[in-house]
C-alpha cells in the first residue's frame, strides 16, 4: 500500500532540472508534470551523494519557510517525544544515525495515541515491534517498513515516510494535543474503550482457579464469581454517582465566582488550587508548556504546505533509488498480518475476528455454490425426466402413468391410432403429448401459435365427428406451463 498522496501545493513548481539522467517526466507513478522538483532557489540541482553535508536553507523549495515549518513541527511534539530538525534531514538522506531516533519517536507517539504507558525502559526490540504493529493497525501496510531490521540499523527514510503518513492520516498533532491538555477535572464519562483494558491486564492479582483432575469447574464457583463481579459493578456505580454529586456541589457552591461570566463556576482544578495554593507553580508550568505547544502548532499549520513539498522530494528520491537498484527479491510477499505481540492485544482480537469472518464467508459461499448446482441439476433433470417418460410410453402404450384422464368407452383402434398420429403431428408442431392409460384419450398440449392451434382443432374436429357415433372422443387438454406454451 502506497502512502497517501500528499496534498497538492499551490505554489508554482519549477521544472525538473536535467541533472538527473534517470528522471524523465513520467518516472514517478505517472505524475506527469506534477513532480516536485528538487530545485534550489538558484536553480541548481542539489541532490548530492551521501557523503556531503547539506544545509537546509537554499537547498529546498520555499527556502526559508522550511526550517520554520520543521522547527514548528518539532516544537509542537509533546515532551516525551523528541524530534530535532537534524533527524528529519538525516532521515531524508536515509542515514542510519537517524534510525534509532525515529524508532523512539514513533514509539513514544504511538504509545500516547493508544493511551498506553510510555516507559523508557522498554527494550528496542519491543519498541520496534510495537511500532510495526501499531502502524499496521492504523492501516500502514508498506512492506518496506515492516521488513526493516529489528536492531534499528537502517531505514530512517522509511520511518520518515511513516511518520509523515501518520501526521497526515490520523491528524497526529491534533490528537496528541487533545490528549495532553491540562485537565479541568470536570470531565465525567464512562469510558468503554478497549484500550484501557490492555493496561489493567498487567495489574491482575487474581490467581487462576485450580481445576480438578477432570479439568472441570463447579458451576457454583462460576456463580460465585459472577456474583462478585456484579457487586463490584454496583460499588463502581455508587462511586460514579458520588463523583457526579460532588462535582455538582462544587459547581453549585462556586457559581457566580468565576471570571468567565458564562461559565460561572469553578472547575475541580480551580477548586483544588484554592485549597492548596502552593500547587499553582506546577499548574502554571503545565499551562505554559501547553501554550507553547499550541503556538507551535498554529505556526506549523501555516507552514505545513512547505513540509509536504519537502516530503515529495523525499518520495522522489526514494523512487529514483528504487528504480536504479531493483530489489533482489522482486516477488511481492504475500501480505500476511505480522505477528502481534503482547503489546497490542487489541490488534490480536481484531485480526482473529477478521480471519473468522473470512472463513465463515468462504464456507457460506461454498454452501451456496453447492445449493445452486444442486438446484440447477434438479431443474435440468425435469425435462429430461419427462422426455424419458414419453419415450417409455411410446414403447409401452399401457403405461402406468396419468390416472387423471377420463375413460372413453369404445374408443376404436383406428381412433386410437389416429389420435396417436395427431399426437405425433402435434408434437412435430411443438406440443407435448401426455399419454394416458389404455383406452383413455390422449391429452394434448398445444403451443400458443394460433395457426397451429386451429390446424389441430380442425383435425380433431373431423375425427370427433367421425367417431361421434362411437361415443365421442373426449380430448383432454392439459395445460403445461412451459416457456411460451399456452393451453387452449
Amino acid at each position, binding site marked *: 500500500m502506497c502512502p497517501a498522496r500528499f496534498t497538492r501545493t499551490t505554489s508554482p513548481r519549477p521544472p525538473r532540472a536535467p541533472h538527473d539522467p534517470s528522471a524523465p517526466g513520467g518516472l514517478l507513478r505517472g505524475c506527469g508534470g506534477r513532480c516536485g522538483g528538487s530545485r534550489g532557489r538558484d536553480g541548481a540541482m542539489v541532490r548530492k551523494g551521501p557523503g556531503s553535508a547539506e544545509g537546509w536553507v537554499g537547498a529546498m523549495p520555499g527556502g526559508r519557510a522550511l526550517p520554520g515549518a520543521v522547527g514548528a513541527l518539532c516544537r509542537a511534539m509533546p515532551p516525551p517525544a523528541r524530534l530535532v530538525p537534524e533527524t528529519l534531514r538525516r532521515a531524508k538522506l536515509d542515514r542510519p544515525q537517524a534510525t534509532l531516533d525515529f524508532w523512539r519517536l514513533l514509539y513514544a507517539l504511538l504509545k500516547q495515541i493508544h493511551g498506553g504507558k510510555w516507559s523508557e525502559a522498554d527494550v528496542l526490540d519491543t519498541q520496534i515491534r510495537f511500532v510495526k504493529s501499531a502502524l499496521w493497525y492504523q492501516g500502514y501496510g508498506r512492506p518496506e517498513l515492516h521488513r526493516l531490521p529489528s536492531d534499528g540499523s537502517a531505514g530512517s527514510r522509511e520511518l520518515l515516510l511513516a511518520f509523515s503518513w501518520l501526521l497526515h492520516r490520523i491528524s497526529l498533532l491534533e490528537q496528541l494535543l487533545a490528549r495532553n491538555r491540562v485537565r479541568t477535572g470536570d470531565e465525567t464519562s464512562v469510558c468503554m474503550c478497549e484500550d484501557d483494558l490492555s493496561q489493567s491486564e498487567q495489574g491482575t492479582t487474581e490467581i487462576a482457579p485450580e481445576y480438578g483432575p477432570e479439568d472441570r469447574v*463447579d458451576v457454583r464457583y462460576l456463580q460465585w464469581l459472577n456474583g462478585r463481579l456484579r457487586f*463490584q459493578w454496583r460499588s463502581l456505580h*455508587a462511586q460514579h454517582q*458520588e463523583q457526579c454529586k460532588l462535582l455538582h456541589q462544587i459547581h453549585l457552591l462556586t457559581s457566580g465566582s468565576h471570571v468567565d461570566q458564562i461559565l460561572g463556576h469553578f472547575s475541580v482544578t480551580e477548586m483544588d488550587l484554592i485549597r492548596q495554593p502552593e500547587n499553582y507553580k506546577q499548574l502554571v508550568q503545565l499551562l505554559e508548556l501547553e501554550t507553547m505547544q499550541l503556538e507551535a502548532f498554529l505556526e506549523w499549520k501555516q507552514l505545513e504546505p512547505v513540509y509536504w513539498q519537502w516530503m515529495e522530494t523525499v518520495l522522489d528520491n526514494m523512487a529514483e533509488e528504487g528504480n536504479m537498484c531493483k530489489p533482489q527479491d522482486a516477488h511481492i510477499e504475500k501480505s500476511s498480518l505480522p505477528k502481534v505481540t503482547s503489546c497490542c492485544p487489541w490488534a490480536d482480537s481484531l485480526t482473529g475476528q477478521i480471519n473468522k469472518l473470512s472463513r465463515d464467508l468462504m464456507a457460506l459461499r461454498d454452501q451456496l455454490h453447492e445449493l445452486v448446482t444442486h438446484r440447477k441439476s434438479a431443474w435440468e433433470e425435469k425435462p429430461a425426466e419427462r422426455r424419458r417418460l414419453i419415450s417409455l410410453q411410446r414403447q409401452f402404450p399401457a403405461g402406468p402413468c396419468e390416472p387423471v384422464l377420463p375413460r372413453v368407452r369404445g374408443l376404436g383402434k383406428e381412433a386410437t391410432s389416429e389420435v396417436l398420429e395427431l399426437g405425433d403431428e402435434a408434437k412435430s408442431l411443438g406440443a407435448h403429448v401426455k399419454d394416458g392409460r389404455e383406452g383413455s384419450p390422449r391429452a394434448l398440449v398445444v403451443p400458443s401459435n394460433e395457426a397451429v392451434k386451429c390446424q389441430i382443432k380442425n383435425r380433431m374436429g373431423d375425427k370427433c365427428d367421425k367417431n361421434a357415433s362411437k361415443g365421442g372422443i373426449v380430448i383432454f387438454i392439459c395445460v403445461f406451463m412451459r416457456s411460451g406454451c399456452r393451453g387452449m
Partner: protein
Amino acid sequence: MSLVTVQLGQCGNQIGREVFNAICSDVHGTHGLCSKKENESYHDACKERFFIEAESGVPVARAVLVDMEPKVISQTLSIAAKSGYWKYDDHSHFCQKQGSGNNWANGYTVHGPRHKEAIMNLVQKEAEKCDRLGGFFTIMSMAGGTGSGLGAFVTQCLRDAFPSSFILNHVIWPYGTGEVIVQNYNSVLTLSHLYQSSDALLVHENDVIHKICAQLMHMKQISFKDVNQVIAHQLGSVFQPTYTAEDGLHYSRNPLGDLMETLVPHPEFKMLGLRNIPQMPENSLAYSTFSWPGLIKHLRQMLIANAKMEEGIDWQVQPPRPGSSVPSSHSTNKLLHFNTSIANLVILRGKDTHSTDLGSFRDPSLYTSWLNPQDAFSAWKTPRAFNKYEKSASLVSNSQFLLKPLDNVVRKAWNMFASKAYVHQYTKYGIEEEDFLDSFTALEQVISSYTTL
C-alpha cells in the same frame, strides 16, 4: 459512604436505637488505644457512615423509623435525644395513629401498599442526603405480625426503587418457645420474601443472645434492653470502620459492598451468622487480658462446632481429613456436627492486630469443595479498639450456622400448615395457600442448598 438504616416495627426500632447508642459511645469513648490520628480518621469514617452533621452540632442519625404504633417511635426519639450525643431527625419517621393487629398478611398486603409512598418518600430523602449511598440496613423481627409483614413489603419496595444498591436485612430469630402461635408461619413468609429482594440476611437468634446474657454477662433479670444491647454490640463490631485491605491507607468506604462481595455473591446462599468474642460484663473488662492466638483459636472452634458463644464449645469436633473418602451415611453424621462454611469474614479490632496469624481460618477443609480459601476467607482489621474491649474479634459467616434453626422453623410451620391451622387469618387479607406453598418451596431449596455443601 453512608448507610441508611430502616428500623421496622417495635423490635427494629428498639434495636436500632441501641445500635446507634453503641456506635456513638464507642466513638466518644477514650479507650481507643491508638494514636490520635488514627482515632480521628476512625471518628470521621464512622460519622460519615452513620450520621449527618446538623447545624446544632449534634449528629443526626441516618435512619428512617417505621412502625404502626406511635408509642415505640416516640420513646425511641426521646431516649436518643436525651443522650446528648446524637439524635434522630424529627421528621424521619412514619407511624399510624393506632395499631393494626398482629397479622403478617395485614402488614404485607394492606398496610404496605397503603403507606408505601409515605415511607419511600422518607427513605428517598435520607438517601439524597448521602453523598454516596452505601446501601440500606434494615432491622426487623422475623416472626412478628404487622411489623414483619410490613418489613418484607418495604424491603421489596427498596429493591424496586434502588435496584443497584446493597440491601442488608438484619432479622431477629424468635425464641423457640415464643408467645405468638403463628410465629413460624410469619417466619417462613418473611424469610422467603426477603430472600428475593435482599442481598444478605444477617441473623441474630433471641435464644442465643439470651444465653449469652445469662451465662457470659451474668445477668439475673434479663430484659429486652439487655438483649438489645448485646445485639447492638455485636452489630457495632461489624459495621464500625475497618481497613479491608492488608496495607490499607484509609478506612474502607464501602462496608456493605465489601461484605456482600466476600460473603454472599452466590444467590442461593444468603444467610449470615454472627459471632463475637469476648463477651463479658463491663466491670470485669478491666481485670481481663486477652491474647490473639487464644481468641482466634476459640473463634475458629466456635465456627467449626457451631457454638453460639465461647463457653461450652465442643472441642471434639474437627474438620474432616482432606482426601478421606467417607461413605455417605458417615458423612451425613459428620455434617450434623461439623459446620461447613462457604465463606467467612473475620474482623479484628484492637492492639497488635497486624501481628495476628489467621492461617487456621485458611484451612481448606473448613470450606466447601467448590471454593478455595483464597476466595472464601477475608479479614478486616483496625488497631482501634472497640467499645472498651482491648481486643475483640468478630466472625460473620456464611455457613451452616442457621441450617438447624431454619429446618426447625420450616418443619413446624409445615406441620401446622398440613392441618391448615390458622391459615384463614392470612387468606383473609390476601395471602393465599399458593403463596404459602411458594414460600415453603423457596425455603426448602435454601435448606437443601446448605445441606449439600
